């Protein structure tokens, strides 16, 4: 309707006119939260390398972002990203991928990258399901939920991914739902600036697969659920675990500074006279 373009389009590949996502999918809200963080930090796409695995969420960096992107194999983006960071330590390395990709098949890469405290930002897009392959149970699928691979209800307990990464040693860990995109942007800014392993667990609606099987339905209904059941960590910390049933605890779980892997390796090389 006008020659004007969306203010964040300048960070996107000009030939890509549309996202690859279903109507109402939260992946687009997370994409925008990420681009807004980059914009507010005054960084350019040349400052970044984006890495993703396989899944719907892995389609955020490529084809959308007008930057160097690696669309890698299922579960392995953190392994590729570690190599990128070792080779190009001056770049901000950002992994964007799904809960299945990063916490199921790729779970060990996640915890060990956190333990090593390698400087990267992971945006873990948690829709509680394997979206791309048709709605199978993931390690993040809520207990009791009916999915196509758990037709009588999911008998397994779900991962608390943020708690896992805090325990593994992450330097910055935060969780926000897509109902809180402004807070998500703020945390992504912090995560990018953090020298160490940083993860944002972005809880998001997959209306197409999760919405259908969970009977939560549409994108708007799922956002309403986040609005009703999102609770800040500061408040949740004072509550009994039984009161937190069905709640989504949001906020910053850890924000600390400790020796980072790339810097530690460089210091080691200096000390032993090795090449940097």
């Amino acid at each position, binding site marked *: 309707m006008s020659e004007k373009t969306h203010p964040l389009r300048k960070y996107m590949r000009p030939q890509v006119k549309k996202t690859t996502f279903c109507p109402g999918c939260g992946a687009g809200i997370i994409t925008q939260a990420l681009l807004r963080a980059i914009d507010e930090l005054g960084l350019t796409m040349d400052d970044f390398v984006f890495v993703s695995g396989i899944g719907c969420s892995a389609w955020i960096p490529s084809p959308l972002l007008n930057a160097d992107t690696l669309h890698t194999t299922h579960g392995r983006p953190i392994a590729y990203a570690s190599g990128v960071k070792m080779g190009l330590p001056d770049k901000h390395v950002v992994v964007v991928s799904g809960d299945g990709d990063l916490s199921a098949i790729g779970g060990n890469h996640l915890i060990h990258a956190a333990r090593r405290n390698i400087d990267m930002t992971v945006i873990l897009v948690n829709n509680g399901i394997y979206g791309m392959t048709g709605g199978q149970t993931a390690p993040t699928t809520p207990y009791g939920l009916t999915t196509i691979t758990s037709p009588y209800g999911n008998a397994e307990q779900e991962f608390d991914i943020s708690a896992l990464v805090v325990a593994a040693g992450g330097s910055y860990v935060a969780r926000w739902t897509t109902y809180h995109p402004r807070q998500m942007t703020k945390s992504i800014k912090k995560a990018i600036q953090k020298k160490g392993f940083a993860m944002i667990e972005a809880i998001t609606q997959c209306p197409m697969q999760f919405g259908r099987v969970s009977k939560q339905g549409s*994108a708007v209904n799922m956002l309403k659920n986040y609005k009703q059941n999102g609770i800040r960590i500061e408040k949740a910390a004072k509550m009994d675990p039984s009161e937190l049933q069905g709640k989504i605890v949001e906020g910053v779980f850890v924000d600390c500074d400790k020796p980072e892997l790339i810097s530690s390796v460089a210091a080691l090389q200096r000390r032993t006279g090795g090449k940097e």
Partner: protein
Amino acid sequence: MQKVILFPQSCKGMEDCGICAFVCPRSLFVASEEMNESGYLPPLPPDEEKCTACGNCMIYCPDFAIAVEGGAVDGSEE
């Protein structure tokens, strides 16, 4: 000055998405009867008089179909 700019070709439809209508505190979004190129029904331009430029519709639209001039991007909705 026009506050809200729509890019209707980017929209995935108010029927299946409709997030703009949900997050607008002034309930300013209703669906057009005209399909876009992809066959979706985008919203009609919201009433500028009633719009507070809060920025919600822009920030929540998953398909980059809305821009708000001077939108309060870091204002807090809670």
